């Protein structure tokens, strides 16, 4: 992390905007492309006025064609530019699956290291915003199986900036997931100037002794709220913010589990085959004899999508109260 002298309070949208702006200013090779990123300034106004300052050749409005957005960006990256492609909502990423998995993630391997693909794909994901079927999904589990692809899902504004800078600097493709509900909800001190947070490093956001909770994205905030509730009940829960989904920070998870002997994984994505499954398997393989309780995953039910109706959305999403109950059961097991 570079030395920074001051900081200011930003929300997650502002943190993304500031980081992109600084990247555009710092390096002419940086290109932003995606649906409505130019004249509309992005649907969340993240790139508002960028097109006026940096011009339509560096801030490119694309057709509604995700395969093209990523495909063009892969070509730019291979030929020396630093593209930051945006998928307007993660729900729309499926047409670009081939370009992400088949092209970007395999470029370095296929070219025997001659080409790399220094590409960032940013996309808002997650629910709890009445987004229904097409504006609520979590896509991380669909991509985390793929070697050659890094996946980042920060929860705090300072991590958004540090990790987005690291993603832009990284020589290989990074899928950068921004949780929509945290965009304006979560505010925090963000250091000024350029700094990076290493990809693949988790962060212990609350220390505790009786249970390790691993989460990422919006649910980190809810897990913290639940853990504070348990603190007032005299129960001590450690909360680990994964920050990077892949590479996974095994060391931080294992050292926490070895301390608390219990592991609860909380994520918004479906349970079956989710990130929690990988963490569970990793801990079972490497720390079985530290476990004093079965590993538990508190995740979304296996239904095809989050409903629009509020009761259906609430049924799909967890809550700080539900998380607290799961934590209580684990601590008292």
């Amino acid at each position, binding site marked *: 992390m570079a030395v920074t002298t001051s900081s200011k309070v930003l929300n997650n949208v502002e943190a993304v905007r500031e980081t992109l702006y600084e990247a555009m200013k710092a390096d002419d090779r940086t290109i932003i492309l995606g649906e409505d990123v130019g004249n509309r300034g992005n649907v969340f106004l993240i790139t508002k006025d960028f097109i006026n300052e940096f011009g339509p050749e560096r801030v490119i409005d694309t057709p509604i064609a995700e395969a093209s957005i990523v495909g063009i960006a892969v070509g730019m990256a291979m030929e020396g530019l630093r593209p930051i492609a945006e998928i307007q909502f993660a729900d729309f990423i499926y047409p670009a699956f081939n370009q992400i998995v088949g092209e970007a993630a395999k470029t370095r391997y296929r070219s025997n290291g001659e080409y790399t693909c220094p590409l960032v794909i940013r996309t808002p994901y997650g629910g709890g915003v009445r987004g229904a079927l097409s504006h609520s999904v979590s896509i991380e589990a669909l991509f985390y199986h793929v070697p050659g692809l890094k996946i980042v899902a920060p929860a705090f504004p300072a991590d958004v900036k540090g990790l987005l800078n690291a993603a832009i600097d990284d020589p290989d493709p990074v899928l950068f997931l921004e949780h929509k509900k945290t965009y304006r909800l979560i505010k925090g001190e963000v250091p000024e100037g350029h700094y990076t947070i290493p990809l693949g490093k988790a962060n212990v956001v609350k220390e505790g002794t009786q249970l390790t909770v691993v989460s990422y994205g919006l649910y980190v905030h809810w897990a913290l709220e639940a853990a504070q509730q348990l603190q007032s009940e005299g129960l001590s829960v450690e909360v680990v913010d994964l920050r990077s989904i892949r590479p996974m920070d095994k060391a931080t998870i294992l050292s926490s589990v070895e301390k608390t*002997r219990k592991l609860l994984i909380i994520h918004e994505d479906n349970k079956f085959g989710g990130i929690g499954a990988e963490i569970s398997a990793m801990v079972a393989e490497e720390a*079985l*004899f*530290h*476990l*004093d*309780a079965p590993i538990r995953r508190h995740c979304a039910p296996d239904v095809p999508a989050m409903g629009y109706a509020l009761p259906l959305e609430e049924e799909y999403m967890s809550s700080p109260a539900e998380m607290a109950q799961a934590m209580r*059961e684990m601590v*008292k*097991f």
Partner: protein
Amino acid sequence: MATTITMPQLGETVTEGTVAQWLKKVGDSVEKYEAFVEVSTDKVNAEVPSPVTGVITQMLVKEGETVPTGAPIAIIDEVGAASGTNTAGTEPTQQVANAAGAPAAATPAHSGNGSSNGQRNAVDANADAALRSASPAVRKLAREHHIDIRTVSGSGANGRVTADDVLTASRMGPAAAVGQAIGVGTNFGATGAPAAMPGTPSKPPAAPPASGTSTYADPIPGTLIPLNQARRIIAERMVESKHTAPHAWSMVEIDVTNVWKWRTREKDRFERETGYKLTLLPFFMRAVVESLAAFPLMNAKFTPEGLYVNKDVNIGIAIGLSTNLVVPVIKNADKLSIKGLAIAAGELIDKARRNKLGVDDLSGGTFTVNNNGANGSWASAPIINAGQAGIVTMETVVKKPVVREDDAIAIRQMMNSCLSLDHRVVDGYVASGFLADLKKRLERMGPDGAL
């Protein structure tokens, strides 16, 4: 009155058993103590006796099926009681209490019979459940700290023993852990109050040393040696026996001159032929099994229901090792000649020294012989192996001037033999008769004869 029969625990560390063979069918009647099922574990095959007399109404486990200790395996309808309509018949036996205490029990919970035995078995079932629900972390910590999980009281959900519970038990020190074991009631029956154990510190030592500094083989003054499993079990058994069986003691002096001559004449050939040394032990054991046949009450055991006179004569031999004591058992010792006893004992002693004794080698004893004289002991007051009526010792053999019946003085080889007996089972009359019989038999042996 239906009694649920549960899978017995065959050995200290055994948590499940396989029904190898049903010896009865549904509808067959079975006598109390009659074997009705053969159960096997990875170490042991055992025929399980029925705790009640009745008719087998259900077999809940198929042949070849493995179930946890304490799980119901059969239901026996007791003879003479209207089925399920009243409770006036025979009270459920300890097996019923066991089933009620076991978490897996699917039968309606009978109330325990209130006897110490019933409570004890219920607690044992809980202790076994504690073992089954132990997490990997608990198992690992228990191994590292030499803690028996069954002796730790659990603070987790449903009484589960947690990793912290094991660490707390370890910090409290081994003395406290034993106290706790008594409190939990592991094998201690009605006398299981922690305060009842003499010499147990009521508080843990102020500053237990770091583990691994002081061991049984290398004791360091001022330090605490953590209890290992063997020492803990020895401690439990000794306390159990001393607290439940009122010990009485008697001694006879036996002229073993002729036996000694016989043994001296045979020992070189015997060792050449078999590879085992020929000591006085098998001669003594042969006399013991003959005396037991003459005094079957000495081969009995005390139970709350009555004195059970054992059919088999299985003689335990106490063998002291550097770190603990083991008592392997020669099964059906009364069917063996002196030579057979010598070989059987030699095999067991050899196994004991190589630490190869299995559960079946160590179980089933009905009476115990302690060869105590090797280091010159002249008399000793042994502790009865719990569940037996007595233990008899062989003390050192010494040459002494003896006044014979014709008032002549002769130099003879003399050996004392001491007997501790469970006074609940036999009185002095029977015990002294047994000792006198033993003396007579040994004095008649040799100097000639075939082994």
